[in-house]
């Protein structure tokens, strides 16, 4: 009987962890669906915070969720270096450059711009918290128009407090574990954040051409 309960509990937990909370304001996908891009170029991330390593966490963890959504994601490290060679190594410069120019240069359908607006870690003995806020903007490499955008703002409070949001709790656990080490590792946090941004129903990215859901997910996106 006990194992039965555990089994049930585990499955309920699985549901909670697996799902993303629905968005309150569904995104407008008209332009994105009209262009139906196949490929996404992720350019270096703009950092408006004092944490100098934050952009690296995001760049290293963005390819997986976007590729798993079914898009061709350009090799982020190669792209970063090629941009540097072309004098576009500065994230601010790249973000200001005309998307059409990048579209032509790389032969890419869309460009994904990420900005980290906030990344505040408050270290304390009993209650450590991280406040993060970031924006995502996908622009057409053909017209330069914005096709999709998303904004995420969350506070992660580790320790045993329950925020009521299963995903936030999960991240809290990861962050909590990471912070106990001398050198904090935010990869799990960045993974969750990027995954959340592209997967969330009515807010994330609709399935791309390499995903079996392609063209069948209008109810969700």
């Amino acid at each position, binding site marked *: 009987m006990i194992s039965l309960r555990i089994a*049930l509990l585990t499955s309920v937990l699985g549901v909670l962890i697996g799902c993303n909370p629905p968005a309150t304001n569904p995104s407008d996908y008209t332009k994105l669906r009209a262009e139906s891009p196949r490929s996404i170029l992720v350019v270096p991330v703009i950092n408006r915070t004092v944490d100098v390593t934050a952009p690296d966490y995001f760049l290293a*963890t963005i*390819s997986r969720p976007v590729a798993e959504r079914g898009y061709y994601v*350009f090799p982020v*490290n190669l792209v970063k270096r090629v941009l540097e060679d072309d004098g576009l190594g500065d994230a601010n410069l790249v973000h200001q450059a005309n998307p059409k120019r990048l579209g032509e240069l*790389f032969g890419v359908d869309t460009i994904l711009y990420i900005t980290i607006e906030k990344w505040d870690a408050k270290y304390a003995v009993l209650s450590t918290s991280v406040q993060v806020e970031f924006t995502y903007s996908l622009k057409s490499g053909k017209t330069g128009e914005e096709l999709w955008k998303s904004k995420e703002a969350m506070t992660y409070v580790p320790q045993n407090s329950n925020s009521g949001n299963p995903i936030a709790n999960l991240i809290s656990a990861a962050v909590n574990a990471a912070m106990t080490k001398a050198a904090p590792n935010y990869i799990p946090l960045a993974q969750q954040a990027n995954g959340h941004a592209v997967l969330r129903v009515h807010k994330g990215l609709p399935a791309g051409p390499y995903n079996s859901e392609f063209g069948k997910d209008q109810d969700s996106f």
Partner: protein
Amino acid sequence: MNYTIALLLAASIASVGCNRPTQTYEWGKYESSLYTLMKDPTSLDKYGIALQKQIKNGEESNKVPPGIYAEYGYFLTVTNQPGEAIKYYEKEKQRWPESARLMDKMIMNCKSPKPTQAPPTPAPAAIVAPAPAVVIAPAQVKES
């Protein structure tokens, strides 16, 4: 018996609950090794090894993710193996036609490294690699 039914039920609830897809591609240590490389350029070798493993495992199950052949090609480029690099750029192009224009450029670049662009300035940190001791630099052969 009841127990089995309950488990089955629980499992089905879990799978119906949401459509979180399983992973399509083999990611290996891509994320952590790339992050380490960004923080510490001297970890380039580890990054290269991680990519190599990822490709090997990915090819066994036809799950090499987009961009990975190209990332490995770039690793080969900066470690002065242009011939090998071209092979991987070609693989990327073949597997993912979306990459064609960029891959053609990378291949061109391998065939004629550093073309006419800019006078021979030492180009600080233009390339991630802790530059190998011997660099083939045709520009230096230029006669005055």
